[in-house]
């Protein structure tokens, strides 16, 4: 008998608990730190003509995009360059997770220049040399960040290019991605057509 009383009191307490706990709607989170769009502006130093190339992640949500998990290697963006010319490549990073409030994250990278580095890794096939360009950002050790680079072309050819934004690289000098260490924040691919 008395056991029932306890069971009942437990049940009543349970109901009281339930009544007391009502959850509010959770707040939506837009990941404003991550990059969702990268724009590379290529300016021909000869005639000052320029072109913009925009990279957006396939898995990212934009109003009219759908997700693709297929290998998109085949339809890489092509950057057209002329032989025996020089170009300035300016890379900028954006977050437009919240479409009403797109953000330019490049300034955060500049503010933490010591912790960041941009590196372009090229396959064989094109004769392109890359160095830091006019107006590039320097870190406290006078290492260029490569936010602005000068690309000098010679003979015609095609190369695959992988651009990396590296966070906390172990060094800022190297010739392959492996040399830099650190964690990759951005990785994007395009083809450089020198023709």
């Amino acid at each position, binding site marked *: 008998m008395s056991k029932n009383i306890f069971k009942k009191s437990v049940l009543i307490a349970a109901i009281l608990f339930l009544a007391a706990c009502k*959850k509010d709607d*959770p707040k939506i989170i837009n990941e404003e730190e991550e990059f969702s769009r990268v724009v590379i502006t290529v300016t021909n130093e000869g005639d000052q003509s320029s072109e913009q190339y925009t990279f957006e992640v396939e898995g990212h949500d934009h109003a009219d995009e759908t997700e693709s998990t297929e290998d998109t290697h085949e339809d890489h963006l092509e950057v057209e360059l002329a032989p025996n010319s020089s170009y300035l490549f300016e890379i900028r990073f954006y977050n437009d997770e919240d479409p009403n409030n797109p953000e330019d994250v490049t300034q955060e990278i500049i503010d933490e220049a010591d912790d960041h580095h941009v590196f372009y890794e090229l396959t064989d096939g094109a004769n392109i040399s890359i160095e830091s360009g006019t107006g590039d950002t320097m870190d406290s050790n006078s290492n260029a960040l490569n936010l602005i680079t000068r690309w000098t072309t010679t003979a015609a050819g095609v190369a695959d290019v992988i651009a990396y934004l590296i966070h906390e690289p172990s060094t800022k000098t190297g010739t392959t991605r492996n040399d830099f260490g650190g964690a990759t924040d951005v990785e994007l691919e395009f083809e450089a057509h020198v023709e």
Partner: protein
Amino acid sequence: MTTSFVFSQECNLTIDGKIIDIEDNSPLEAAAIEVIGTHLTAVSNANGAFVLRNQCKGKLTLKISHLNCEPVFRELDLDKSSSFTFQLEHKIENLDEVVVSKLRVHELSATSKIHALSELQKDRFSSKGLAGALEQISGVSVLSTGNSIGKPVIHGMLGSRVGVVYDDVMLENQQWGQDHAPNVDLNTFENIRLIKGAGILKYGTTPGGVVILESILPKRVDSLYGKTILSGLYNGRGYSAISNWVKSYKSGAYIKLQGTFKRNGDFTAPNYNLTNTGNKENNFSVLLGKNGLQHKWKAFFSYFDTDIAILKSAHIGNVKDLLRAIESDVPLVIDPLKSDIGYPKQANNHYTANIEYTNTNFANGELHLKYSWQRNNRKEFDIRRGERKNTPSLDMELNTHNLLSNYEWNTRFGDFDSGVFFQVQDNYSNPETEIRRLIPDYLKTKLGSYFTATFDNTKDFIFAFGARYEHHNNEVQKFYRDSRWNLKNYEAPFRKYVVKEEASQKLVKRTLTFNTFSFNAGVRHRVSPSYSLNVNYNHTQRAPNIAEMFSDGLHHSLASIEYGNPFLEKETTHKVVVDFEKKVGDFQFAITPFITIGKNNHIIIEPTGVESTIRGAFPVWEYTTVSALFKGIDLDFSYAFNPNTQFRNTTSWVEATNTKTDLPLVNIPPLTTNNELQFSLPKWKSFFVLLNSKTVFRQNRYPNNNFPQAVVENGQIVTKTVDISTPPNGYHDLGIELNWGPYPLRSSKVSVSLILDNVLDASYRNYLNRLRFYSDEIGRNIRLQIKLYH
């Protein structure tokens, strides 16, 4: 000379007596009573009685030992044949200091083998954590993340399938995560016990097993006592102080205070520093209560707070970084040793407050009422930039309220226990992390009851039965990204639950209910006083946890994206465990084979594809169900060469297979065997040496979860395999422990231990360490431990 004087005496005296369990004064059978310095040994019978004949007049020392008890030494000055009663304390070394009232849950299970850690085994890991301490038991391994985070794995199962019960309440602390250690301090409790069966239905439904942490309640006497352990360690440049004090009164009132303070810096592997691997812990608990003759009150409060650094080189950005780490023999970040904790790190705290009332004479039974509150906060810090540098990437708060009532009664037919329970659990993910929630916000209620019965009427058999019913109600509020929503075709099944659409995300509010019914049946057959056989069958139903259904996010250390499966159903597991235990003279052994079957609805996570992000392509892991078969065997064997030399071996083997595909399951502990030799000098009985040799074989059964990744090498794009599957080689770990004491020190006693881990400074990697891709395990360590009993 003294010896010649002794030998000149007539040796025809008899010592007889009884060995009883201090907990409940029951006779202890199969205790060994040895006369130190001779080879005379008696073994107590079923009534606890023993006889030692042909004893000489004069001083002698008896060593009384029993399976799972620390030996007790008694000095006697014999002048005529005499009778004695010796009390033996399970698991407690110094019975002079700790006086115990009847343990309330003395019979956790009458038909399962209960493994208890001795005080020595427990103190050895006082500064290292619960999982490591439990690993000393056969069949238990540790799934670790680095060197400071460990989860117990019992018979190949972990996480939500292994329960940690403390002070009679299941610990609730985001246990779904593989890199989440139980947020509890083992030093708060005197007793640590483990059952490898499907747990105790009184506490919950955990098919792997259950770990039980208990405080010993003081006796009704005026007394003040306690224990302090001070430790220092060489590798890690760390130290810890652990202290507890108990004040008890004749009235039955008592108070116990306990605190732990721990600091460790970066550890080192044999060949390099393990950058950012330190940790710190600040814990405090207070237990107070009153043991009246009929009414007992108990209140418990504990605070656990830890910061754990995560190996810096394990923080990677994408799959290419992972590939680089795997291909490198050494960590990609090696800095000089530091004592502070940098990023990435985990910062966890856990609060508990319990209040309990017991009426020991309520309608001829014992009635318990208990309310318990737990609050767990878990923060994970990654390496971030800008103003978010000091903002955690994950910040979850889990509040759990439990209300329990149970009633135990004995009749001439058997012993019974029945109870009802109610739980409310609230999980809140702090949106200020600005990282999408890995686990959604939810409100869970659980309601149910259990009943257990034990029949111990016949001479040779004990039978036990139990049943537990649980009703779960999960109210989940989750944001889905539109891309995921469309990819998985959630529109049809879940459209009706969408409450809000905002910025390419949908807020879904769903209520999921699960009803689970679990039962077990067991028998213990006492074939002879020295031979027993247990057989236990457990049918366990477990509701899927929220992570299995709704997790959604990126795991940095493995560069993988994890998704829950919202269609999961309850998981049913059948487990049969058999224990043979036998003692033949100085040999003692236990053989524990088991088999676990999860048919069709055993929940695992497996790789399912690749997702492209602006960081590169990431493998996607999703929860799914398989048919699983676990089988294995644990062996415990000990042999006393003589009263001063004992040998012990524990061996564990487990094999787990997805029977649908006939492929092995991932992260199953490899074959492990542990040899331990303990010896002391007859003349110098307060000193002993313990040698420990642990051999872990290579795991040869593993699924292939490797995936390809294109990289640029020598100006060409080549495709490489990211090998996250191949287990590392086996290893051998040698430990030495030297113990002195206890020696009297004023009114206290002191003992000193010098412990050497990985004496050979071997470099190895451990299959069950999730950071094995990044670094070796820690190298040689020297620990000094000073124990004070006051």
